Structures are given as C-alpha cells and as structure tokens.
C-alpha cells in the first residue's frame, strides 16, 4: 500500500537479551525498511516489547548489533563513547509507550516542544509552530495549553505520538500503544497511527494486539514466540495461510 524504499532504517543482527537467568530474546535478525510498517505480535513474555526497548537502548542488548539510521551499535559494551551514540540513536527512533508518560508539569504544547528545544537546541519560536502543526495532525490543536491531567487517555497518547514525531525520527517504535486505553478510545489512537503510515509514509514498528489494524495497515507481520520470530510475512500470508500451529492458536485467541 505504501511505497517502500529498500533502504534499511533499522537493522537487527543476532540480538540476544537476558534478564538474570531468563533469556527473553534468543537471536533476532530483522530489517525494517524506509516507509515500512511492521507489526509485532505474540503472547506476553515472548520478547516483543524487549525488542523495541533494545532498539533504542532502553535495554542494553546482551549480545548482537543494532543499526538505526546508519548508526551501528554493539550490545553488551559500556564506554563513554557509546552513551553519546545511544543518544543519537534515540533522536532517530521515536518511542511511544503503553502508559503515555507525558511530562505532567508541562502543557501539551510544551511537551511536544520539549525534545526539539532541549535536545536539538531549537529556538522556541521555531519549535512552537512545528509543535502546533503536530498537535493539529493528531487532532488536538485546541488542547495546546492544557495540562496532561486534564486530558483523556486517548488524548494523552496522541500527544505522546506528537511529542515523539517532533524529533523528526526515522522510525517510530510503538510499544502496545492502545493496551492501557478504554475500548472506546482505542480507535482514535489507531486512526492517528494509520494516518502516519498513509500520509507521512512513516517507518513504524508496532507491538500490538489490534489485529484488525495490523491487517489493514501493516506491510509485514512478525509473530514472536519464546524469544524468536517464529513466523513472518504479509498480512495475507500470516492471517490466511498461517504456517505454524502456534501462530494459528494465538490468532484464534485474539481474533
């Protein structure tokens, strides 16, 4: 549905992640190309959130290589140079969390401007119109001066998306963006995400259980099972010609 440029924005090679004795990721290799929307699904504990968190180094991979927007980083090594590299990776990879942690002491527009002003050192006069435009894009232009506490969950999550977009990332990482929302608010967040794919051709990696959305928007689906990608393919391949019984079982349970 969207034009995909075959340049890899995210490249993951041999990614392992261990928490204590628990091996959560057991060797992940994947590439996400420019303009591609990849939906990652699977049972909880299968490692899908950990993958996203490893990509922007909120978790340091135990082993493996992560490349985001041409910045290549090894997991498991700690040195001062790496900290700066990690910050650069994070500037290129916008993250949207499950529980929409907006900064409560800032208004909506201040939340959106925070990244450009503080991290990119953009002057406020320049950041404000950009932030206003992004709030407009997520349908919240009228809430610019409100504090997060006055917003609904769906509105908060849309502000969080605008905040991540303000950094002009090369890829957006969505970690279960609708799981903490009341059912009637899920669609407003999904609509914004869909618009990102169709209007902006944003490269996205989305961990979600919204399979209807996945079928409609994703170019590729990855089924995570016990720390590996068990099955992957286009929505048609995965939904209609499911290869593995584990995938079938999961899909039957959520659909």
């Amino acid at each position, binding site marked *: 549905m969207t034009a995909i440029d075959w340049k890899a924005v995210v490249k993951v090679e041999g990614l392992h992640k261990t928490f204590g004795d628990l091996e959560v990721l057991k060797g992940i290799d994947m590439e996400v190309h420019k303009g591609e929307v990849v939906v990652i699904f699977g049972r909880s504990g299968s490692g899908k959130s950990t993958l996203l968190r490893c990509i922007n180094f909120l978790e340091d991979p135990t082993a493996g290589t992560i490349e985001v927007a041409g910045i290549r980083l090894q997991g498991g090594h700690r040195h001062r140079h790496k900290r700066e590299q990690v910050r650069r990776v*994070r500037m290129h990879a916008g*993250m949207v969390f499950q529980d929409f942690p907006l900064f409560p002491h800032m208004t909506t527009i201040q939340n959106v401007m925070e990244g450009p002003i503080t991290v990119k050192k953009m002057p406020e006069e320049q950041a404000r119109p950009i932030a206003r435009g992004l709030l407009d894009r997520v349908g919240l232009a009228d809430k610019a001066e409100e*504090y997060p506490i006055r917003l*609904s*969950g769906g509105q908060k999550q849309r502000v969080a998306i605008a905040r*991540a977009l303000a950094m002009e990332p090369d890829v957006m990482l969505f970690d279960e963006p609708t799981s903490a929302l009341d059912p009637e608010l899920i669609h407003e967040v999904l609509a914004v995400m869909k618009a990102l794919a169709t209007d902006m051709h944003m490269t996205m990696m989305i961990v979600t259980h919204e399979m209807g959305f996945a079928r409609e928007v994703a170019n590729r689906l990855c089924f995570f099972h016990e720390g590996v990608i068990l099955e992957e393919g286009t929505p048609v391949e995965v939904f209609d010609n499911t290869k593995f019984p584990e995938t079938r079982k999961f899909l039957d349970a959520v659909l």
Partner: protein
Amino acid sequence: MAAHIEIQGGAGETRPPEHPLDAGTRLSFRTKVVLVWTGIFALLGIFFWLAKFDIAWMNRTFKFIITGVWVTVVIAIVSIFFAVVLALLGSLGRLSKNAVAYGVSGFYTSFYRGTPLIVQIFLVYLALPQIGSSLQDRGLIGSTLARYFVLSAVLAGIIALSLNYGAYMTEIFRAGILSVGPDQTEAADALGMSYKQRMRRVVLPQAFKVIIPPTGNEFIAMIKDTALVSLIASSIFWYDIFKRATVAGNHDFKNLEALVVTAGIYWALTAIFTLFQTKLETRVSKGYVRQAGTPSRKPGAKRLEEQSRREDET
C-alpha cells in the same frame, strides 16, 4: 473490562472529623480546645507571678533581645540556601552509579547525621584555624592565605548548619527524586535527553513538589538551631536572639526572664514561617489537582487516581 469502580471523593477531600465527644454536649470541640489553651496560659501566668517575674525588666529588655532577630533569620536563610545546594548534590550522589560520587555523598551524610550539630559547629570553628596555622608553620601556605582559615563565628556557624542540614535534607531530596517514576525517566531518555537535561527539565521540577514541604519543616527547625551558633564567640554586631538574652540575663541576674522572652520570640518566628509554609504547600500542589468541574470518570481516571494516591502517601 472490569466493572467501573466509582471513586467517590478522591484525594484532597479532607473534612475535619466529626469528634465523637461533640454529641450531646453544648460546647463545640473547637471551643473546648480554646478553653484548654486559655487555661494553660492562665497557669503560666500564675507561675510567672509565683516566680516573681520582673515583667518591667522583660519589657525593657525585649527591644534589646529582639534586635537580634535579623541575625537569626539571616543565618537561617543563608544556611538553608547552602543546605539545599548540598542536599541536591548529595542526593544526586546517593543515586549515582559513579563510585566516587556515591562514596563521597555516603560519607558526608553518614558523618553529618551521625555527630551532634554542636560538635560540628566547634569543629568548623576550631579545627580550620588550627589546620591553617599548621600549614603555615610547615611553610605550605603564606600568612595571607592562613588568615582565611580563621573564620568568624557567624561564618563557621553558617558552614556547620549548612553541612548538617544538607546531610539530613539529602534524604528528603533523594526521596523526592525517587518519587518521580521510572516511566518519566524513560520518556526523557527516549527523546534523547542527557542525564543533565533529564534532571533539569523532567525529574527535578516534579521532585520539588515532594521536596518543598519537608524543606519548609527543616527551615523551621533551623531557625531554632541557629541559637547554637551563639555558643561560639562573636561580635556584638552578630549577636542573635539567644546570645542577647544570655548577655542581658547574666548582666542583671534575670536569666529566667530573659529565657522566657527568647522562647516567646522563637515561638512567634516559627509560627510565622509555619503559616508561610502552609500557604506554599497548597500552592505547590495546585498544578496537580484537577479543577472542579472536570469529569472525574474519564478514561485513565483510575490511573490518575492511583497516581494521586501515590502522591498522597509520599
């Protein structure tokens, strides 16, 4: 979805409890408390009369003693300022993964919380000049530099008070910083913020909401502890309330009267600052309380409810 839980009258709704003894009596609880206080003051009056308090002397000397109030207030304000700076550094050290920062701040809080304030005041006042003259004797520093090791009593007092209160307030600051959840830290990290940016822009502004009320308490405690500074020598210009009371009392053999006047002044001072503090507290919490008229059963209200409950507990 689980059934919606109606949360009635959430955080912030505090009505003074109906006192059980009010039932069936004519006097309200409040009136009774006022009567008790009046009774206590009447008893004190009788005590003063029995002790043959020289009220005329107290009146005459009051002005001399209260002149010292600015010294007390200045020492307290300057010291609390430096204590806040030390507490901020100390708490960041306690939360640091850097062994030097962690170790130094650990030693600092342990020592200054583990020794009496009065000992610390004398240490700063007496030890530094000795170190200075010793260094001079060994020819390591000149006499000009050595002179800086001799501190005035007030300066030594301010340094000791700042260090002592900074050590205690390190814990307050640490708790305040920890009260800002890891989700906030991660959100800041995910934007690509550095440690400094994250602290300055995201963590500390939220931590201060938790830090300010107990810091007010520390300030009020410090007003009283400034009296200890008068135990080291000082010039008349820097005589605080307590020093003036001691001097005047000794001079006229009216020590008890002088002390009662002093106690009254300290009490009034702390009462005034407590009033300020109460106002400040309501002001600080304002931005986080949803205004009346906002629907309370909004999506995510349960989460908000939990959040405010967490805030109440801290």
